[in-house]
């Protein structure tokens, strides 16, 4: 039972990490080649 709970936690953590990849990609793609200056 505890194993299952921990594995769900682990899956959730990786789901967040995959979402993080998507968010970073979206963030940079939306900015395009915008320069700071």
């Amino acid at each position, binding site marked *: 039972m505890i*194993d299952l709970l921990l594995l769900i936690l682990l899956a959730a953590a990786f789901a967040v990490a995959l979402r993080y990849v998507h968010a970073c990609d979206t963030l*940079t793609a939306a900015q395009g080649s915008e320069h*700071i200056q």
Partner: protein
Amino acid sequence: MTWQGWLQIMLFAAIIVALVKPLGWYIERVVNGEGTWVQRRLTPIEHALYRLAGVDPAREQIWPAYAVSLLVFNLVGILALYTILRLQALLPLNPDAQATVAPDLALNTAVSFTTNTSWQAYGGETTLSYLSQMAGITVQSFLSCAVGIAVAIALIRGFARRTMPTIGNFWVDLTRITLYLLLPVAIPVALFLAWQGVPQTLAAHATAATLDGATQTLARGPVASQDVIKLLSGDGGGFFNANSAHPFENPTAVTGIVEMLLIFLIGAALTNTFGRMVRDQRQGWVLFAAMAALFTIGLATLYGAESAGNPAFAGLGVDQVAGVAQSGGNLEGKEVRFGVGQSSLFATVTTASSDGAVNAMHDSFTPLGGLVLLANMMLDEVIVGGPGSGLFGMLLFALVAVFIAGLMVGRTPEYLGKKITADEMKMTMLALLCVPAMILGAAAVACVLPVGLAGLSNAGPHGFSELLYAFTSAAATNGSAFAGLSVNTPFYNLLLALAMFVGRFMVIVPVLCIAGTLAAKRVVPASAGTLPTGGPQFTGLLVGVIVVVGGLTFLPALVLGPVAEHVAMIAGTTY
């Protein structure tokens, strides 16, 4: 301080400097598939692995595909190690009948070794079977190291390439680094360690009768094969609980220096690989010089503090002066055969890198010594750092440095001919801020919850340092322990696992994103307004940025811990 201590420090530094260039050249050829002597002989194995995994080595990946491949690979790694640990009592190669590892400890350990942290909430000789050590811990040490180097290489490609959408193929990088770099070093050095006296056996623990007639258990096992990769990989997880203070893991004076060299070797050489791949080796030497400057400051401070010892002992008539009989200073928690000199060097090396192997008990260092160990890790472990992670951490700070310089003169910052834009700076900030946020946030939570405070064995600022060290070590993927904190509880196992996860993957993803955006850019020619990044001026700027960013972020926490303890020690109060 003794001349012998400084002599071994200079010998260590000289060997590292001498090896940076040849190994940097070798790594460049390995990752570019340019055919080294080893590569030519092992190519059939490489191609067989690709066929087995269904990988097309000619097909490169854009950065999100590279990142997803990396995450999926690490998820499988965590699950595999977790399964081995949870089933170890039923699996073979368990001659000492080690019990199954508890779920929270198994998850903590699986995350720890997959993220190249090697935080150990267990004693290896009393917890793990030989199968768990070999097929679990050792395998992940190789693979997590290869992952770190692969990310660094992907980022270097980002700087080196021009208008390309891809940053390499994760599976190819992983395979080549493991096959042509890690294994060819690990196998002969493991044999060398075995020759020096490190055990390499599948026999059960031995029992012996002591001179007093008592029975003593002597733990042993396949130590040499794990010892070498624990050091080379920046992983640091010891076969034994005492790690490299144990005479079976570090038996002679020669193994002592070889172990420290192994820890720094790849991380230092990658600066040269970076210079070669961006076709300007001065750029690599600038990064190396910044690492060397920070390392020297830390080591001199730590060695000085440990040599001075505790002023309270003077009133008690305790001799702390170096002489023929002792190396002097603060010897508590240190092996007499290493003395203060090698213990200080090893401790600085292991925290400046992301290794975490120890040959002395960091909890027993003086407050200033402990501060240096904490600071090394808090500076994002860019002082050589872990294989790969140190270089990409240093490159993140280089981006911040050129950004600050650009702001000062009102120009769009450039680094190696690439315009650094809002995209890269956002990702840099994400990567640099998530580790401090995790360290300080988790330490704060543990400080206020009874379940967190229950693990402390010391009061006052020293107790706070123990707690801060644990989360710093985990989030910075170091893995060394200050000790004194009982962490094998569900609370600490899960919170530290989260810290390791965030400290590894939440940094790697934005780093790969930066690699992707940079690789897609064209190179702009240098002009009169371009900040030169190939000389000592940029080294100074880089060191300044690292110290200021690290100092501003962590100074309040350090004041509450080691600084307060140091002031108290001078006033005669110890904890």
